[in-house]
């Protein structure tokens, strides 16, 4: 063989139409390099620089560990995240178990209710808990009877995080529990196995990867969340609020970079574990598995229903309090109906501008994000050539999932604020907010697109090439129409997240590009918690409206492009 191998590698000439694909692919890779890799590298660089930009090695890290206050925050972050995780994972597991493994009624209602937290910024929970248990909270006495002096601090943070992270853990666990092979349970029944033993020998081992993944995701979301500790943390410092104080308050960029790296670490770890877990989970279920269908059992179904009712009521209580408080005249003295909070928020708080900015951001992200993500996924999955470009691009597409918003936003400051950066002109514009948000939520969109594309016959492109049809024609006539439902999903995901995000954009907005979710923080700081609640409700309403519009679009798109699926 050596003689053959020694001969020059044969390479196909590249058709000009493929060349177009390579250029777009390279463009997307370049954009991700500039708007993801660049900022991350800037953080790494910043963490080993002194205040005047000189190289100081690990000096900043040493200084960090010599500051007791900062070390306290590190510990606070870790233990509150652990407690929240320890509560969320079992609660969500039981809830997911009820949804997937029982015959209880109203399943879709139970499922929908738990999605509510996703419609508003995470800090809405914090605002709501202030109304429940805060200094003037309705149930403050109950809380104190349990020996908790005040909600501000660890208790508030943990409670709010539990509420806002619940849907994320639940979705992972539902997926894990619905991947059950009925044949295992039938075999166990045939052997006369009791219920508890089946649970511990089949159900739990089957869901272990999902449990691990849910725990990691919960921990990461909690430790990197910024809005909740900002609103309800009081004097209780955590990493996320430290970053903000160090960078925005004290302009101590190097130390801010060090803290950001601490936040990046668990997220990267989660990301790595999650990738491994997913690979194992999908390989567990073979194509021949028979899906599990629960059988009715009155006592058990009743218990499960009762449990879900309790959890759902708690969720509704959190949401309901925010809505109620937003319409109250003067909390807690005059509980009459009033639009004062809305008027104040919109007129005095300048939310009218911010609201339009939020919509602009959401539309911009939904459109630009969907286009970039789908084009990228398509070119990676379905085109040929430029092979050296593909592995780094794939990594860049998955990496955003491992980067907390706070870290990304900080990286943007370091990277784009630098006068030497030719992209400096973007700083403080709406464009950078859109780009940052697209990058922040890139991975989920990318994975959705890849899944949809992988479902298509791999030979469409080969057939087109043999018929001398350039790839974009097939993309336009075949791939895109078939994938429109996925496109609608991706676009909705971008829209809702752009409406509710705080963590990355809080570093990047300017007075002209302020968005609603950020104004909530400002209102809260100004003591206008009623108006803050009103604005959170406003976001939730806008998100809900967007969901309904997307539902309509989805229905319309299905009729227009998916007729071939149903016609028989």
């Amino acid at each position: 063989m050596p003689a053959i191998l020694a001969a020059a590698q044969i390479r196909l000439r590249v058709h000009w139409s493929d060349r177009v694909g390579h250029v777009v692919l390279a463009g997307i890779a370049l954009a991700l390099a500039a708007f993801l890799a660049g900022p991350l590298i800037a953080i790494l660089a910043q963490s080993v620089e002194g205040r005047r930009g000189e190289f100081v090695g690990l000096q900043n890290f040493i200084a960090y560990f010599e500051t007791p206050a900062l070390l306290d925050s590190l510990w606070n972050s870790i233990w509150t995240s652990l407690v929240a995780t320890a509560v969320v994972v079992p609660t969500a597991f039981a809830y997911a178990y009820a949804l997937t493994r029982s015959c209880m009624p109203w399943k879709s209602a139970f499922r929908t209710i738990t999605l509510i937290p996703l419609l508003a910024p995470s800090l809405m929970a914090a605002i709501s808990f202030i109304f429940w248990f805060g200094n003037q909270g309705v149930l403050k006495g109950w809380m104190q009877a349990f020996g908790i002096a005040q909600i501000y601090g660890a208790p508030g943070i943990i409670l709010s995080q539990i509420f806002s992270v619940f849907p994320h853990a639940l979705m992972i666990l539902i997926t894990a529990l619905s991947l059950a092979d009925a044949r295992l349970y039938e075999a166990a029944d045939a052997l006369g196995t009791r219920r508890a033993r089946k649970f511990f020998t089949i159900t739990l081992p089957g869901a272990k990867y999902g449990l691990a993944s849910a725990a990691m995701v919960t921990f990461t979301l909690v430790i990197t969340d910024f809005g909740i500790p900002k609103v309800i943390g009081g004097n209780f410092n955590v990493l996320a609020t430290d970053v903000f104080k160090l960078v925005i308050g004290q302009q101590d960029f190097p130390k801010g970079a060090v803290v950001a790296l601490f936040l990046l670490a668990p997220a990267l770890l989660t990301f790595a574990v999650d990738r491994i877990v997913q690979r194992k989970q999908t390989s567990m279920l073979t194509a021949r598995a028979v899906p599990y269908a629960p059988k009715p059992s009155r006592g058990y179904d009743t218990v499960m229903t009762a449990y879900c009712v309790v959890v759902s009521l708690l969720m509704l209580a959190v949401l309901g309090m925010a809505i109620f408080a937003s319409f109250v005249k003067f909390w807690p003295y005059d509980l009459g109906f009033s639009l004062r909070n809305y008027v104040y928020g919109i007129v005095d708080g300048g939310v009218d501008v911010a609201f339009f900015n939020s919509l602009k951001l959401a539309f911009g992200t939904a459109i630009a994000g969907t286009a970039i993500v789908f084009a990228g996924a398509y070119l990676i999955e379905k085109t040929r050539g430029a092979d050296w470009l593909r592995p780094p691009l794939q990594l860049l597409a998955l990496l955003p999932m491992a980067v907390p918003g706070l870290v990304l936003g900080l990286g943007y400051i370091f990277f784009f604020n630098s006068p030497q950066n030719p992209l400096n002109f973007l700083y403080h514009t709406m464009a950078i907010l859109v780009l940052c948000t697209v990058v922040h939520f890139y991975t989920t969109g990318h994975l959705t697109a890849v899944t949809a594309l992988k479902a298509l016959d791999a030979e469409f492109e080969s057939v087109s090439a043999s018929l001398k049809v350039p790839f974009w024609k097939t993309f336009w006539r075949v791939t895109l129409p078939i994938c429109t439902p996925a496109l609608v999903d991706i676009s909705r995901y971008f829209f809702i997240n752009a409406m509710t995000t705080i963590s990355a954009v809080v570093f990047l907005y300017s007075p002209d590009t302020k968005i609603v979710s950020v104004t909530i923080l400002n209102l809260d700081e100004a003591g206008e918690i009623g108006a803050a609640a009103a604005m959170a409700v406003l976001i939730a309403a806008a998100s809900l409206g967007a969901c309904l519009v997307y539902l309509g679009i989805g229905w319309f798109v299905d009729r227009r492009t998916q007729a071939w699926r149903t016609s028989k």
Partner: protein
Amino acid sequence: MSSPQGEPYLRLEGIGKNFGTFTALRDIRLEVPKGEFVCFLGPSGCGKTTLLRIIAGLEVQSAGTIYQGQRDISALPPAQRDYGIVFQSYALFPNLSIYNNVAYGLVNRRAGRDAIRTRVSELLKLVGLSDSPAKYPSQLSGGQQQRIALARALATSPGLLLLDEPLSALDAIVRVHLRQEIRSLQQRLGVTTIMVTHDQEEALSMADRIVVMNQGVIDQIGTPMQVYREPATPFVADFVGKVNMLAGTVESAGRIRVGSRNFACASCGGAPGRSVRAYLRPEDIVARPIEAGDPNVIDATIDKIEFLGSYCLVRVTASDLQGQPLTVYLSLNYLSEMGLQSGSPLKLRILAERMRVFDA
């Protein structure tokens, strides 16, 4: 496509393909004249599909040159080659109607609307599906989808038609029917065709010539009859059709000894005493006519009769051949006429001139 006399339409010279350290194809040489129907036949993993994809430009060969109609296409991208292809999955565009699927390659040629319509209906008639141009692929049966894929591949009148296991996704009856349909279509159009298959019956019934491949190399190129009657290697003898394998030794040039018997056999050479294997088809061992004094008649005992309909697969032990087992086809009529059943003795005549002998 005019090629001078004797010049092959497709020529592969020394095609090799490595995936890392694994050699998928080694030094493949093949010439296909214009209008010929060639089958690449071999077990899965023998490299036949890889070779087809290299011809299509969907894989890149590690070494070697490909000429199509005297044009060196070795480094051309698929879009610059001249072929139509049908995949195992058909890869019909599910969201386009039958009409639009077939017209897919025509639209790009800037042909007029009417010209396209005429061509599509011509093609649909050709594959016998003119009545449902507005349907979606999912509304058709597997066999019908197959024909649409064929029509789409033929729409632009390519010089070469590539078929990648086109029948393997169909059920047995449709498969047999479509075999003949594809074959007669190919003959009518005179399009040079290469089909990849692992089904030897398919290859034997359809091809002008069969390329038998094994582990990345070509074992034999020949007409179906040559491949069946004169297999070039033990692999070919074993893979194509049923075969009996007898262990023996060379008696002298042109004679082979098996057990206590020896047979005249043209393909048997080498030094006396060398151990060899003789390959013999079941139909080359016959029960009648047997004449007294025929040197090639052996005594055997029936072990087992497998009923297949008008013929039975009969396993026998030949005491003359050291008790080596043999499989023969005997007609049901003969078996009942002679009252044969398991344990019955019978005489069989070996058509020794059909024997193929290879080194052990």
